């Protein structure tokens, strides 16, 4: 399944939201420092935003990354046949009937006979 524009934008939104959450966390720390408060925990809204954007990113990546492969190692080979597997391009030889059968050769051959 090819990645559509919608999936790409979902992924972008997820990253932006995560970045925003990180920025808010940094802001929160500087707010604590300015007010001489001790850090106990992150505010709940930042925490929730981080989690939600994580899930959005996960969904987006799954859609954008493309199709999954079969987990079985031999799955790719299941539909291959010996005919295509034994065909080795680097050892092709051309001393076969292909030349004689090709149209050009047969045409000129006919002319010679005539």
């Amino acid at each position, binding site marked *: 399944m090819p990645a559509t524009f919608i999936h790409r934008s979902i992924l972008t939104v997820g990253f932006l939201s995560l970045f925003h959450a990180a920025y808010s966390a940094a802001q929160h720390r500087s707010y604590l420092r300015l007010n001489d408060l001790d850090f106990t925990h992150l505010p709940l809204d930042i925490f929730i935003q981080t989690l939600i954007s994580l899930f959005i990113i996960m969904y987006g990546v799954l859609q954008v990354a493309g199709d999954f492969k079969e987990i079985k190692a*031999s799955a790719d080979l299941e539909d291959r046949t010996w005919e295509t597997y034994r065909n080795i391009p680097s050892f092709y030889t051309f001393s076969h009937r292909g030349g004689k059968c090709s149209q050009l050769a047969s045409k000129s051959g006919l002319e010679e006979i005539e």
Partner: protein
Amino acid sequence: MSSLKENMEKLKLYREHNIRYSREITQVWNETISSNIDNLGKEKHIILEQVCIAAIDCYQLKIAEKCIHELYKEFPNSSRIRILESMYHEADENFNRALQILNDIVKKDITNSAARKRKIAICKALGRNTEAIKELVEYLKIFMADVEAWQELSELYISEHEYSKAAFCVEELILHNPHNHLLHQRYADIRYSQGGMENIELARTYYNQSYKLNPKNIRALYGSYLTTTALLNSQKVSGKKKDAAVKVVDWCLKEIKKRYSEVKVSEIEESLSALEI
């Protein structure tokens, strides 16, 4: 333009699956690609190479010449294209010229495996199989991980009826690629052709393994049927083993029949009528 894209997809499929549809490829070239060489984008050079080999295969030397010319324009010193040129001479049965080009390449770059392989292919084309085998063995001493060469060597040995050596090559291939059902099947084929109780026993094991790796492989299924019956008919099998073997034979036959019953009759008739022509 859409048909150009379709055709490019088709060529890509042929390339990826190693399908030697040379005539189809040259047809595609004549229909769309020859007039659109500059629109091929990133795949231009690889398609040109593919078409060139296909054209040489069909003895359409004019197309091949054009491809080589196009490629030389961009890579004047490439040995890969020199090899294409030597293949062109090969098809023209000008073997000396082809060998000369290949020797030049090897002299300049002793690690060029493609040129060495072409030299072996020329030996094969000239019908000098024993010489080809000797050269290929020398080649494999240097490039031990070359799967294609091992495969080619096993084919050459089979054509010379040296089954045990061919089997060794396939063993090597299985080591490289243990999940490939075709190799297990091939190994079993060779062992079965060799004959003898021990070899048939081995063949049966490998047919079973091949079938286990890919339950769609009907040749492996039929192979295990054949080998098991062969074992049944031998004198040495004891009572308990015999019962198990009978069960296996029955099961194999049932499975094969089931598979054939799934194929539509019209399809079989079609292929049979094609045979009669």
